[in-house]
């Protein structure tokens, strides 16, 4: 929200000197009651860390913009921001249609000279590990669970014992109306996004039969138009929630439905809200959560005070502002059976000239595995499935094929077996 950035008082002026950072420098130049003697060397080290660290912010919406502003005002100088969306509201009129990431970057850079923010308007999935390796820390201000899971799995997969820089702390902020959370993850060391998947509130859903037979609220009429009527009348058209014609069509249908059941309150913007699952953002919830995320980033980078996410300690702060005010900080424990961090991929040396069948037999013989009915796949291909029967039949011919045809050198594959709670993951290494 660029408008909020404008409202923020700017302390001091950028003169190129450290004048602007006088108070921060003081803070970082002396030990405090809670600084860790082993990890904190007051003075140039933490100050240099702030100036030199490269931070990646994912999301440039209500939360992301707030995070960018806080980071810039905390003295961070090298920030990248990714967002795939273009602006349709919340920013300024003249910016409608432009990429959120670019507008946010430009605005914050103008307000905080000396801070370089590099925007990328696109998906996080467009970027590879080499890209993410450049950063010291990643902060998410996202509304998508899918994107969180993706970046989480990517950062977990990047951890390489040969290289301390490969461990990228992940700070995740999230808000929904008056509620929010901030959490810190040290990939592979502490509970990850996937371990915490059940912490996300499920999307409130109304039974389909209520929508179909006895709608009671305007939202029910909109959901009916969205889920039932569209399929009935515009089956061959893929619904594009950003297309005003599509939203108008749903709005008209919902309005007709509401009239029939004498329900009032269906509006165009409510239709947009229900269909796109827009949860009204509360600016101050975003501000609180963003502040917490940026404080953690500051502490992790400088070691100036203990931070959320230290292994064995608290890693999750939840905040509720709707029933008075309440916060609770706790340790969400790592799950041993987490599909992402519970069983990290292990190297498996394979002879590219041998067959997939031999590999499967080998897995059955491995003492830690002893898989009886394994299912194996890569991201792209189903290698061999013992069950269900139809997949067994269609993948059986693969057993006779050479490893080199099925698995590339360095490619990850996952193995599941009904006898084991967890999935095994291996990286094929040609030997």
């Amino acid at each position: 929200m660029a408008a909020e950035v404008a409202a923020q008082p700017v302390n001091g002026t950028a003169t190129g000197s450290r004048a602007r950072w006088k108070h921060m420098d003081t803070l970082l130049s002396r030990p405090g009651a809670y600084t860790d003697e082993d990890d904190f060397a007051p003075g140039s080290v933490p100050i240099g860390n702030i100036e030199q660290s490269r931070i990646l912010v994912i999301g440039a919406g209500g939360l992301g913009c707030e995070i960018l502003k806080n980071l810039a005002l905390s003295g961070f100088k090298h920030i990248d921001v990714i967002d795939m969306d273009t602006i349709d509201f919340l920013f300024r009129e003249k910016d409608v249609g432009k990429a959120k990431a670019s507008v946010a970057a430009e605005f914050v850079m103008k307000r905080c000279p000396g801070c370089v923010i590099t925007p990328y308007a696109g998906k996080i999935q467009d970027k590879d590990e080499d890209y993410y390796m450049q950063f010291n820390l990643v902060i998410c201000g996202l509304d998508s669970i899918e994107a969180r899971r993706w970046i989480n799995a990517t950062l977990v997969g990047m951890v390489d014992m040969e290289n301390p820089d490969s461990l990228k702390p992940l700070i995740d902020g999230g808000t929904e109306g008056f509620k929010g959370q901030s959490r810190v993850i040290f990939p592979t060391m502490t509970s990850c996004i996937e371990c915490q998947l059940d912490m996300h509130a499920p999307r409130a859903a109304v039974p389909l039969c209520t929508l179909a037979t006895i709608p009671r609220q305007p939202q029910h009429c909109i959901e009916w138009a969205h889920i039932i009527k569209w399929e009935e009348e515009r089956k061959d058209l893929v619904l594009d929630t950003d297309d005003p014609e599509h939203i108008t069509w749903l709005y008209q249908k919902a309005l007709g439905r509401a009239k029939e059941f004498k329900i009032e309150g269906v509006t165009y913007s409510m239709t947009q809200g229900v269909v796109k699952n827009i949860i009204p953002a509360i600016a101050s919830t975003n501000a609180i959560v963003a502040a917490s995320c940026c404080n953690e980033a500051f502490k992790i980078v400088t070691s100036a005070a203990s931070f959320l996410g230290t292994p064995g300690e608290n890693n999750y702060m939840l905040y509720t502002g709707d029933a008075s005010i309440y916060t609770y900080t706790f340790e969400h424990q790592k799950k041993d059976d987490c599909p992402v961090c519970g069983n990290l991929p292990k190297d498996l040396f394979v002879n590219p000239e041998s067959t997939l069948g031999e590999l499967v037999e080998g897995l059955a013989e491995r003492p830690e595995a002893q898989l009886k009915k394994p299912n194996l796949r890569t991201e792209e291909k189903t290698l061999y499935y013992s069950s269900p029967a139809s997949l067994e039949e269609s993948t059986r011919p693969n057993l006779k094929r050479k490893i080199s045809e099925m698995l590339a050198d360095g490619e990850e594959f996952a193995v599941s077996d009904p006898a084991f709670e967890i999935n095994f993951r291996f990286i094929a290494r040609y030997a």
Partner: protein
Amino acid sequence: MLKIWSMKQQQQKNEAAAGPAAKKKKVTAAQLRVQKDLSELALPQTMKTVFPNPDDILNFTLHLTPDEGLYKSGSFSFTFAISQNFPHEPPKVKCQQKIYHPNIDLEGNICLNILREDWKPVLNLNAVVVGLQFLFLEPNASDPLNKEAAADLQGDRDRFKRNVRSSMQGGSVKGESFDKVVK
């Protein structure tokens, strides 16, 4: 951060060494979970799966031929479309035939609580399959998606039964024609 890395090294010493990360695409969390669910899928004689593209386990069809109940001997198929948000989100399941059923509308939408409002990430594909099977053994009038069929079932079970049989033969019920699902 220095301290965190030394903790990581300590942690690593306690575990077996892992090699450098894979460069290629990783199996996604949703794929991992579906693969696990499929390995645990216990299908009775009356059901089988078909994967149009065996490499894509997120999209498949489930065939169901009940061997008892009102829908006995009908062949019904359901498309399963699973998103990368699984298991946070339930699979999208639709019936491919136009059938006369109180909990399934003419477009194939299904009113089954665990497919929508009662879905939880701890549920698996087996639970969905059992739920579908149950709908065909015990259609229920209290969650109507096809109002006529529900009223029929509630009003006169024998008439409902006759209407189900004739619809399954490809006949019409109250002016609406249905797909033939019996041989």
